[in-house]
């Protein structure tokens, strides 16, 4: 399973923090091949979160990015 996030819209720090926060639920790898996007690969996903992990990851990263821009 893979998630693609635009680098101009999601901050790298936020993606890193999200990767750490979600590490208990899956093996998460960030692939930096593309200069325009963050590619997040999920493996060994906890079955309980299989259907939602990509969406939840994107939400979490967006929340952290928004908080960072607002200085909180």
């Amino acid at each position, binding site marked *: 399973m893979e998630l693609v996030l*635009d680098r*101009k*819209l*999601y901050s790298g720090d936020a993606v890193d923090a999200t990767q750490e926060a979600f590490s208990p639920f899956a093996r998460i790898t960030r692939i930096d091949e593309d200069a325009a996007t963050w590619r997040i690969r999920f493996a060994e996903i906890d079955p309980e979160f299989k*259907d*939602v992990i990509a*969406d*939840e990851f*994107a*939400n979490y990263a*967006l*929340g952290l*990015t*928004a*908080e960072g*821009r*607002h200085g909180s």
Partner: protein
Amino acid sequence: MTTKVEVQKGLYPLEVIYGASYQFIDRCYVRLEQADDGRIAIYIKPKPDSVVDVEALAGEFQNELLNQAFRRKVAQRTGKVRDMVVQRALYSAVPERSDADDMEGDDLDFLDDPLGIAVPWEEKFDGEAKGEDEGSEGK
């Protein structure tokens, strides 16, 4: 089911889009994507077990974009006044200099009590009162 809202970046700055998105991420999945023509696409999907009308969500999101844009405008206009008010409030919380601070370096001879003001009345006049009583008894 997912709905999409597209906005022109020049019309709604990124901070506004983030602010609006932040209001929705507790009940929806929100994903941002950059379009080629300077527009940003916002994909909104209700969370599982949610019974929200997706089209209503899109309308709410557009309203929230306006709300955030207005708040940003007001914040920009009132920034200086707000800073002044905060500065004043903080300054008024600073304690004033006490009288003890003002006494440093002043003449402190008054502590010697040259006029005997600090002497209790009984101590000052008791001896005189005893003397009068003795005189009246002798008559």
